[in-house]
């Protein structure tokens, strides 16, 4: 006969392990549910007027324009490093003519969308989480709610729409500066002919590559604001809660960017 009043301490160890596993699984499923529901609510509100155009413009400025300098800088140096390494590698087999397409395709398909998303996460995403977290702990989010205003409409929808607008544009800028960074090293410094650099790029890279980068950047444009606003919205108490939420948002965004990049790269042509 079992003692039904037995507490967790008295349960056999394997039963406690199973219990802990069950609790962990439930927590995980619940978290995924909340996470998905958050995006679902925001997505539904995109199509329900009124759209907060002023806030959307502000968010595009915040995510897009404020990230422009760092995206251009990192794009240029990524292209330069890529140009240098690809040139030196291909020179060993006498194929340095293919530096242009190698740099172009690598940037447009992979590095452009991924690195742009990672840098924007570090710059704007972390700030977004911290801002929403502070609004949460100082009851500004509650204030919106009791004014009969939906905080999702004010704080989350503009950020996600701004991500959809800003990420592809920033990615395009990253790609272009990267290609010219590669040009600077391969053509200006290492003596490859400009016609070869761009001619071969034109011959090997096509619109499909551009579209792969575009779809990835759109996907990351939703993913990063989604994760960052979710973490800000659900941050813990005090400064520690905000700091923790910001770290989690950046780490989770970066991990998901790499995971989604792989799967999108597998699925897209």
């Amino acid at each position, binding site marked *: 006969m079992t003692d039904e009043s037995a507490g967790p301490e008295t349960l056999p160890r394997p039963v406690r392990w199973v219990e802990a596993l069950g609790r962990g699984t439930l927590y995980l499923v619940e978290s995924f549910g909340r996470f998905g529901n958050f995006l679902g609510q925001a997505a539904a509100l995109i199509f329900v007027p009124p759209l907060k155009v002023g806030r959307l413009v502000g968010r595009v400025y915040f995510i897009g324009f404020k990230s422009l300098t760092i995206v251009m800088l990192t794009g240029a140096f990524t292209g330069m490093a890529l140009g240098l390494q690809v040139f030196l590698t291909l020179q060993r087999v006498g194929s340095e003519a293919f530096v242009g397409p190698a740099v172009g395709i690598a940037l447009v398909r992979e590095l452009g969308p991924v690195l742009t998303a990672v840098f924007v996460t570090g710059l704007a995403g972390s700030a977004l989480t911290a801002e929403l977290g502070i609004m949460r702990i100082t009851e500004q989010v*509650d204030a919106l709610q*009791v*004014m009969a205003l939906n905080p999702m409409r004010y704080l989350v929808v503009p950020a996600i729409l701004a991500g959809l607008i800003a990420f592809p544009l920033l990615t395009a800028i990253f790609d272009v500066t990267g290609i010219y960074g590669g040009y600077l090293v391969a053509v200006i410094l290492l003596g490859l002919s400009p016609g070869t650099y761009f001619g071969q790029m034109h011959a090997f890279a096509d619109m499909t590559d551009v579209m792969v980068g575009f779809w990835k950047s759109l996907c990351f444009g939703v993913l990063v604001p989604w994760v960052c606003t979710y973490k800000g919205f659900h941050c813990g108490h005090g400064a520690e809660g905000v700091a923790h939420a910001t770290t989690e948002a950046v780490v989770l965004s970066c991990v998901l960017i790499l995971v989604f990049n792989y799967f999108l790269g597998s699925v897209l042509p």
Partner: protein
Amino acid sequence: MIRVQGLRKVFGRQQVLRGVDLDVATGEIMIIIGRSGGGKSVLLKHLLRLLRPDAGAVLVDGTDITRLRGEALEAVRRRYGVVFQGGALFDSMSVFDNVAFPLREKTSLGAGDIAKRVEEKLAQVGLVDMGHKDTAEISGGMRKRVAIARALVTEPEIVFFDEPTTGLDPILVNTIHRLIQGLHRQFRFTAVIVSHEIPEIFEIADRVAMLHEGLIIETGDARSIQNSTNPIVQQFIHGAVEGVTHAA
């Protein structure tokens, strides 16, 4: 009228509200007092429907707001004004924009009418020509006044104050209390005030309710609370360290 019936709320293993019953009559100033951690803020969040109870009801003019969602809930909240403990001012906006915000978002008033109404409210709380200031530039007392102006700008029927004088000096405490009293006389809203300011808060109270360990243990006018024979109430209002309850 607000009626709270058998309100219960548990966070984890902690039972914060254990069956709260409370009536707030239309047009009165109801003060909720009680020790820190006694559940006052949680009760207030239920009245605002920022939290849902595990059991019980919050009736606003007969409508149980714990069951409301969407437009029906928004309709009730449109009747509310709230002054949060820290003010909850939007720090990306100026004083003027903070007060104008509910009017811009929830009414069809033109810019001229909004400006007139905002200036009028700022004047009522003693903040003439302060609209241009950034919320980061103003003092704690001014923040509370701006929060009061924002809460009242839509002329709500029910105003909630969550510890409106916490962290202010005694002169400012009395100034804010008089301000609330004056505005209440002028606009006749129903006020629910959570406060620790004892005995000062009794001067503006129509009725006082004491919340202790998740239960309303005494309700009455200020005098009856001050003369209560309940040892917990006596210990609390006199701030006695020794008594029925112990410091946390």
